[in-house]
């Protein structure tokens, strides 16, 4: 539970307010076929091509559950450190909409497959907090309505209809829009590590319903409003910021908040009423008579648990304990599965701290600057590793390595080749360095005299040697030789 830390409070006209957020994350299950039919889940097919007669709700069609979707839900539950229920029930959630041909969504209401769990969330400032998980249940996705293809008609594509979704419901443990985004990011990292959802928010495979209320610190929970189907981290933050201030203004003006579903409009960053109370949904849940209870044994759960990959929290702990990384570097590296994999490939058999510096520093910096995804990186982990090797074995200095890195990022060339072609090899030949040092000392007797008074002048000599050798001289050799000559 996160405390009402001062920094999270919002300032109203009449004093401080605390925002309370709970989230429902809808995560599309990664599977080949749908939850209750054998139609494909592939994104981007021709309209209604990935639809079986079950998904189209033709009369007489019966749902048969996809074993792998159940396994994926259990796996996700284990990743959320949650209780796995060996017996759960599918219910019908009834509502009427054109992209829901059954007239109901098969979901889980009273007895979900996964119960309470928790997620530890790291904030950019190095602090962390825990969000309780209320439940995770399996349900069908709806089809897609497209409203802008015709002036008076909506077009319906049922390709998404029946794809398995996991709805992950949090407890109201989130206290700011930044925390909400960080929580969403962490859940996305977990499902990506697990391979249970691709976490792609642009394609809609992950979306969030956000519940927001405000209260005076220490007071009981206020009345909440829900904003549905938000599909980006940025929009989640904007929606919470806007909604919290809207509620504060209403209460401070003497009004009260109506519990309602509101629509977040990403064009102007505002929320507005979506459904009035009279039209509020009444889902009339009841157990689906087409489906027996979903039952499995603990041995099967244990088997899935034994095959779980290393999750971000464990990886972070290992990076700190075994590799000696700082907690900050470790959390940056594990925040995304592809980042962690890239780093581990670079660090394999090398100085982990040096590898971490290069991955989080130059490499992530260059990716960010160019807006490049790590998957499309022009530099492979093996190449970055080879660059680290060149620094470790004193072939080049760290400073020259930055030059080499820039060329690598631009051309994708091997670091060794760049060093060779450009003649960037570090001069470790003490004879050459000695010659340079002698020359500088001979040419600057006044500076040498000055050095006897002010030892700080040493740096000036180092600079001169580097200048003469175009930065290629081994810094340690320069120091040693200079010291010997000047003090000797």
């Amino acid at each position, binding site marked *: 539970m996160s405390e009402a830390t001062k920094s999270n409070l919002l300032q109203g006209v009449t004093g401080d307010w605390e925002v309370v957020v709970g989230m429902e994350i809808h995560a599309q299950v990664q599977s*080949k076929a749908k939850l209750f039919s054998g139609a494909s889940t592939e994104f981007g097919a*021709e309209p209604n091509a990935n639809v079986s007669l079950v998904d189209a709700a033709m009369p007489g069609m019966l749902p048969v559950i996809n074993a792998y979707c159940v396994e994926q839900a259990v796996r996700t539950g284990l990743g959320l450190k949650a209780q796995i229920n060996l017996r759960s029930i599918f219910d019908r959630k009834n509502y009427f909409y*054109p992209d829901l041909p059954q007239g109901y969504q098969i979901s889980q209401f009273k007895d979900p497959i996964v119960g309470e769990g928790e997620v530890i969330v790291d904030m950019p400032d190095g602090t962390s907090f825990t969000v309780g998980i209320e439940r995770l249940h399996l349900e069908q996705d709806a089809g897609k309505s497209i409203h802008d293809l015709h*002036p008076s008609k909506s077009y319906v594509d*049922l390709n998404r209809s029946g794809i398995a979704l996991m709805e992950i419901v949090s407890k109201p443990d989130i206290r700011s829009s930044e925390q909400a985004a960080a929580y969403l990011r962490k859940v996305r990292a977990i499902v990506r590590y697990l391979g249970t959802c691709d976490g792609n928010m642009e394609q809609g495979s992950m979306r969030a319903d956000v519940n927001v209320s405000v209260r005076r610190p220490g007071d009981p929970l206020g009345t909440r409003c829900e904003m549905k189907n938000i599909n980006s981290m940025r929009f989640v933050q904007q929606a919470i910021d806007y909604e919290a201030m809207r509620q504060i203004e209403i209460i401070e003006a003497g009004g009260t908040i109506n519990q309602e579903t509101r629509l977040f409009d990403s064009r102007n960053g505002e929320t507005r009423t979506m459904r009035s109370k009279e039209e509020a949904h009444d889902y009339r849940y009841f157990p689906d008579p087409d489906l*027996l209870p979903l039952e499995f044994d603990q041995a099967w759960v244990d088997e899935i648990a034994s095959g779980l990959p290393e999750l971000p929290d464990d990886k972070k702990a290992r990076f700190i304990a075994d590799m000696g990384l700082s907690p900050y570097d470790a959390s940056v590296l594990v925040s995304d599965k592809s980042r962690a994999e890239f780093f581990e490939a670079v660090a394999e058999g090398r100085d982990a701290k040096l590898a971490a510096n290069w991955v989080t520093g130059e490499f992530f910096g260059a990716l960010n600057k160019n807006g490049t995804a790590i998957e499309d990186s022009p530099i492979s982990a093996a190449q970055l590793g080879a660059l680290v090797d060149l620094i470790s074995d004193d072939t080049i200095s760290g400073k020259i390595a930055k030059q080499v890195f820039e060329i690598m990022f631009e051309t994708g060339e091997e670091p060794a080749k760049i060093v060779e072609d450009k003649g960037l090899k570090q001069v470790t030949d003490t004879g050459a360095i000695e010659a340079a040092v002698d020359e500088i000392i001979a040419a600057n007797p006044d500076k040498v005299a000055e050095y006897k008074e002010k030892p700080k002048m040493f740096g000036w000599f180092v600079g001169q040697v580097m200048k003469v050798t175009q930065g290629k001289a081994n810094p340690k050799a320069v120091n040693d030789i200079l010291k010997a000559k000047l003090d000797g």
Partner: protein
Amino acid sequence: MSVDTETVRRIAHLARIAVKEEALEPMTGELNTILDWVEQLGEVNTEGVEPMTRVVDTQLRWRQDEVTDGGYPERVTKNAPDGDDGFFTVPKVVE
């Protein structure tokens, strides 16, 4: 348990079933007769009895994760009263 005409009107609307105003009263009566009849089950003592989900001892059938269906959009949309370019079309609905 019983329902009033207002509840019947509401349920009909939720199910998108058109019930004429003059049919609401008689339908309420009919539904209440059915509910009374079902209510008789309440006389049975079910203390400590698990809800029954099957009459024969059988388990939920599981399917493997293989694509075995779909790929026939023309069959899916064949009975659609209106359609365009592989889509179903309906009167415009925007929430």
